[in-house]
């Protein structure tokens, strides 16, 4: 990492991690480095998220290719300020964390890599509490490449 980025991250880490309006682009090194969902959730302070049907996942049950799996997430939990996306069976489950400020709806659609058939786990933070929803995605590699 070039020196500038290292100092930037060090400075960011020193400040209490509240999604301040982009004081410095923070990146949850421990969360993204975690090898299990449980460890990743610990870094987000979300060890016991409450299952919620107001947290909606729109994703195919079968993906013809794990390299690109479309996942659409909408949180109808009032006061949602962030959404984290994890793929349980991936080497590093945490793939994204999105902080929503005034003016944005708690919604995101993305393409993720799903290494093998796995649960997609979405954790939303609203008014200091965490909520969770999951869906299984079966992965096959279609095609007949020679």
């Amino acid at each position: 990492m070039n020196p500038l980025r290292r100092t930037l991250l060090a400075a960011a880490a020193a400040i209490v991690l509240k999604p301040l309006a982009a004081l410095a682009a923070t990146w949850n090194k421990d969360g993204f480095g975690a090898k299990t969902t449980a460890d990743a959730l610990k870094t987000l302070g979300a060890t016991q998220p409450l299952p919620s049907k107001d947290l909606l996942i729109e994703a195919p049950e079968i993906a013809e290719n794990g390299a690109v799996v479309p996942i659409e997430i909408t949180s109808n939990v009032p006061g949602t300020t962030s959404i984290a996306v994890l793929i349980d069976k991936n080497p590093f489950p945490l793939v994204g964390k999105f902080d929503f400020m005034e003016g944005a709806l708690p919604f995101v659609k993305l393409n993720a890599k799903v290494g093998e058939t796995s649960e997609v786990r979405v954790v939303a933070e609203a008014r200091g509490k965490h909520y969770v929803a999951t869906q299984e995605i079966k992965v096959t590699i279609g095609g007949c490449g020679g």
Partner: protein
Amino acid sequence: MKRIFLVAVLVAPSALADPTPQDVQKLMQRDFHARGQAGMDRVVQDGLQRLCTESRDNPPAGAAKAIEADQMKTIVFPEGSLMGDWKRGESIAQNGRGLQWTDKPGDAAGGSCYNCHQLSPQEASFGTLGPSLQQFGKLRGNGPEIQRYVYGKIYNAKAYNLCSQMPRLGLSGTLSAEQIKDLVALLLDADSPVNQ
């Protein structure tokens, strides 16, 4: 050269006569070039390919029987048992490489069996161009005659069904005798997952 129409070929929308296999071969000889192990000899049709092309895989019975007999003569049966190791057979069935310009001549070639057939129940990604071969040995036993039939069929499928889509895996030099014996085991060996 008067063009002979063997069997009712799909009628071309225009009055223009359809190109013959000879016309197509001539164009290919001009438009293709060798690459890697894929040489230009492959562009020249043999009698079997020509008859199946002209008849859209519905050859007249007489002509078909004659060529099938010729093809049967090309099958070389090794000495002794025709059953090899079904574990090696499974990886040969999974392996889709062999004879392509992207395959180096030394590389191990496979039978591409899962492309077209269902074999072991564990493999869900199987093709349906060929019949399912699940329980093949359980249903037909694994005596010498069935071993010979399966070996011959893999070596040269066209000896049994002239215009079959199954490649002539032995005759074309794709698979060795050893590899074919391993596939025979995959199909017939009682311990093979195909027969569980």
